[in-house]
């Protein structure tokens, strides 16, 4: 972390409770992960013996969603990594962020992340898995943006959230398709294999959607760009989320679904290609980084690519190699991230060029870095060597283009050797520098964890029985869905894998010795390469914002007339299209049945409407509208609607009085600006088109038969049931009494609101007078 947090509020040495507070803080921080680690370790013997633990409750039973958990070999390995590395990271972070004012927030979010991650790898139900998966995305967002006062941290957090979030949504769609195809959302039932999803026509789309989720989460090319940016997070977070656990969630899911979805050409080709490209590009990009943390981030991309590649191969060799490499990668990569954090802590820089000769000042850190890097480089007797041999065994047996796969693995591994050297040797060897504050090893809480992780790499290498039958074999058995015997050993005998290991080392050392010209060449090459989909992400984000601003400016311009015109035009276009599509009913019956007085009423209405349109006198317009109302009332009478006509007349009179009283206080129409001739023609065109459309709709409706069931019901029940002879009255006060109550409430509310508006004016006036 470049911006170091000042120790604020740190208990002074003379504080009596300082030591208790300190110890209590560490205990609290590490208690939960430690307890969980203990729990999962205690499950190892049972699971290694082939046992599978299940626990479940109904969640959304109507949708077949259960909150069910499953502990088998694969889930247990991940759970152990999450909780075990959790202990190391929690203790380390407690010291790393000591005195940070937001320490509590940090630990709350980190704990939530850990639980969500455990939920992801232990969930048996796909929907539950998705929920936990998204929770890791959310907590990752909060942790990357932990130093939220920095704009780059916020941008990186948002990028990770959007990329992995969109991937997660694609995955959910894939899960739903998978559930529909297989008839279950339970992973344990999917693995039972009663339905072969691979033969389902939905197989390709669901595979693609789920893989988008896995590839975004596990930073596969071309979605990898968010991971290096996520290094804006505090270093313990990078070590935990962005190398050891969260980015492995996609790997976990691919491994979990291998027996259900794997083995097809689509699976093999997609995973192998994506993994190989990601591994090679990740390792190439890693060497070009000047920031140690960025360098590690790109080697993580390489590691994730390798894991995807191995799962793509799909055979026993590939899966066993993937499981071993998964463990190995977690050990050395978490340790190296924490080492870089210690260097940053001591020297306040992570720049490769600014760091050298720290070995004497930071011996423990150096030893940790060296052990981890030896494992990363894959040298015997470390477990990294075993992993690399297994990778080559798997690559040689690749079902598709083994030569290319082996070549990709060789290139990635060789460059990883170089990267390991850059991280572990670069800062510690060479000339000693003059520091303003002499660097020193961090407190034991910060070196013990990384050293333990690095030592695990040595221990598992010298004594592979530590992991082979306890963790690797159960995990591989779970992935392959058949029991697998795994016996790891440093010595695999002479053969192609050993030769490839030798070649890897030779190439890596050659690149290491030529690292300075190589750096320059890579920097030049990187400038020319299309970096990734990050450009697409940036363009999409900018485009979306631009589109939002554009459509807001165009649609939300703040002019009422414009809004209405848009609404009218849209209605005309849509309804007009429907008419064009469906055609018009041609028959328009001539109005021969119209009594003379109804013709008169229609003429009155037309005349009143025309006068309202034309006049510039307010009073004339009000009178003309009153005349229209009277004409409408006459038409009501002509239809036998006597009550309606009465109400219409009453409201019409009230309306004329109200308008005359209120509106005559407003300015004359002549004082307003006129619209220009062109605008007038356009508005008139719009209005006439809309009116014509309404006429056409009405004619169309009149040409279809009317459903009279309700009318007949009211006619036949009005007298017998409600004891009323006026059917309209009975409908209003009896059958639809609640509607009428609502109508009265609306009128009352409108009246109250009108009174309130006038009262506000009165009180405002009083307020003004008081202020004077």
């Amino acid at each position: 972390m470049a911006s170091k947090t000042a120790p604020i509020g740190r208990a002074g040495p003379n504080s009596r409770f300082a030591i208790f507070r300190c110890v209590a803080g560490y205990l609290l921080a590490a208690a939960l992960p430690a307890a969980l680690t203990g729990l999962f370790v205690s499950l190892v013997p049972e699971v290694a013996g082939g046992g599978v633990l299940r626990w479940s409750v109904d969640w959304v039973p109507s949708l077949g969603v259960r909150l069910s958990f499953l502990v088998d070999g694969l889930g247990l390995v991940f759970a152990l990594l999450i909780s075990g590395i959790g202990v190391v990271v929690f203790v380390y972070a407690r010291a790393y962020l000591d005195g940070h004012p937001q320490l509590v927030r940090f630990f709350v979010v980190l704990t939530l992340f850990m639980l969500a991650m455990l939920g992801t790898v232990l969930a048996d139900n796909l929907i539950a898995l998705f929920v936990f998966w998204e929770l890791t995305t959310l907590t990752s967002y909060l942790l990357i943006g932990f130093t939220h006062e920095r704009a780059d941290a916020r941008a990186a957090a948002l990028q990770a959230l959007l990329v992995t979030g969109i991937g997660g949504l694609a995955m959910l769609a894939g899960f739903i398709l998978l559930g529909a195809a297989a008839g279950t959302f339970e992973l344990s039932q999917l693995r039972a294999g009663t339905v072969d999803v691979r033969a389902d026509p939905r197989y390709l789309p669901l595979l693609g959607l789920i893989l988008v989720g896995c590839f975004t989460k596990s930073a596969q090319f071309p979605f990898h760009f968010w991971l290096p940016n996520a290094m804006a997070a505090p270093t313990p977070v990078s070590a935990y989320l962005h190398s050891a656990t969260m980015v492995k969630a996609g790997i976990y899911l691919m491994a979990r679904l291998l027996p259900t979805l794997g083995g097809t050409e689509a699976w093999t080709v997609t995973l192998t290609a994506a993994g190989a490209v990601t591994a090679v590009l990740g390792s190439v990009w890693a060497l070009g980084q000047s920031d140690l943390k960025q360098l590690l981030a790109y080697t993580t991309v390489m590691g994730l690519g390798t894991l995807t590649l191995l799962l793509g191969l799909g055979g026993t060799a590939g899966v066993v190699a993937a499981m071993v490499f998964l463990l190995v990668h977690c050990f050395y990569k978490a340790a190296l991230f924490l080492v870089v954090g210690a260097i940053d802590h001591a020297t306040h820089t992570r720049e490769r060029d600014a760091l050298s000769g720290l070995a004497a000042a930071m011996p423990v850190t150096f030893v940790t870095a060296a052990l981890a890097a030896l494992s990363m480089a894959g040298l015997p007797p470390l477990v990294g060597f075993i992993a690399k041999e297994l990778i080559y065994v798997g690559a040689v047996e690749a079902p598709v283009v083994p030569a290319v796969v082996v070549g990709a693995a060789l290139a990635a591994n060789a460059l990883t050797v170089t990267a390991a050297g850059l991280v572990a040797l670069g800062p510690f060897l060479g000339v000693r520098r003059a520091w303003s504050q002499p660097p020193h090893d961090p407190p034991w809480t910060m070196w013990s964890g990384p050293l333990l992780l690095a030592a695990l790499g040595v221990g598992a290498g010298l004594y592979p029985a530590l992991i082979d039958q306890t963790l690797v074999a159960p995990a591989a058995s779970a992935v392959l869905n058949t029991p697998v015997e795994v016996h790891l050993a440093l010595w695999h005998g002479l053969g192609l894998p050993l030769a490839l290991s030798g070649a890897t080392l030779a190439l890596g050392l050659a690149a290491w010795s030529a690292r300075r010209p190589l750096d320059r060449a890579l920097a030049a090459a990187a400038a020319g390469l299309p970096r990734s989909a990050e450009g697409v992400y940036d363009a999409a984000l900018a485009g979306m914002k631009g589109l939002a601003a554009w459509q807001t400016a165009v649609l939300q311009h703040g002019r009422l007339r414009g809004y209405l015109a848009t609404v009218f035009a849209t209605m005309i276009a849509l309804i007009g299209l429907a008419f064009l599509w469906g055609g018009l009913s041609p028959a328009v019956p001539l109005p021969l049945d119209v009594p003379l007085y109804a013709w008169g009423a229609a003429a009155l209405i037309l005349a009143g409407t025309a006068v309202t349109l034309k006049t510039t006198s307010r009073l004339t317009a009000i009178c003309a509208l009153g005349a229209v109302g009277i004409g409408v009332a006459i038409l009501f009478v002509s239809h036998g609607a006597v009550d309606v006509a009465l109400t219409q007349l009453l409201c019409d009179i009230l309306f004329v009085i109200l308008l005359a009283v209120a509106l005559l206080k407003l300015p004359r129409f002549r004082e307003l600006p006129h619209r220009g001739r062109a605008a007038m023609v356009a508005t008139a065109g719009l209005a006439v088109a809309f009116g014509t459309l309404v006429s056409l709709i009405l004619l169309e409706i009149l040409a279809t038969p009317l459903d009279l069931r309700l009318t007949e019901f009211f006619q036949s029940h009005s007298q017998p049931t409600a004891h009323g002879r006026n059917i309209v009255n009975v409908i209003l006060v009896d059958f639809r009494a609640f509607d009428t109550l609502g109508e009265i409430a609306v009128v009352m509310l409108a009246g109250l609101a009108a009174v309130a508006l006038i009262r506000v004016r009165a009180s405002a006036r009083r307020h003004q007078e008081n202020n004077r």
Partner: protein
Amino acid sequence: MASLLAVLIGAMVAAASYLLLSRNVVRFLFGFVLLGNAINLAILTVGRYRGPQPPLVPDGAAVPTAAVANALPQALILTAIVIGFGILAFSVVLIYRAYEELGTINSDEMQVAEPAGVPGGPR
């Protein structure tokens, strides 16, 4: 009858739309009243013309003996007229108060909530 009303309603809607598209909020209100009348007539028209017999049950009968008008649209229109009048009364007060506060009845000049030049406001 129905075809006459259909054409008449179309003409009223066209005039109402023209008035609604005015920047003068009083003319907007006139358009609103006209539109309300047109819609009430439309409901009536869709209920079909069956002559001028009101929907009443004669004394001594359980159901209407002759063909009477459709009662359902009438009930709907009654509700619509009353609610329309309530909204109209409120709108009149609103326009009057807006004129008192803002000194204009031009809707283009009523820009207090979204002043021009502010993001989200008019350009």
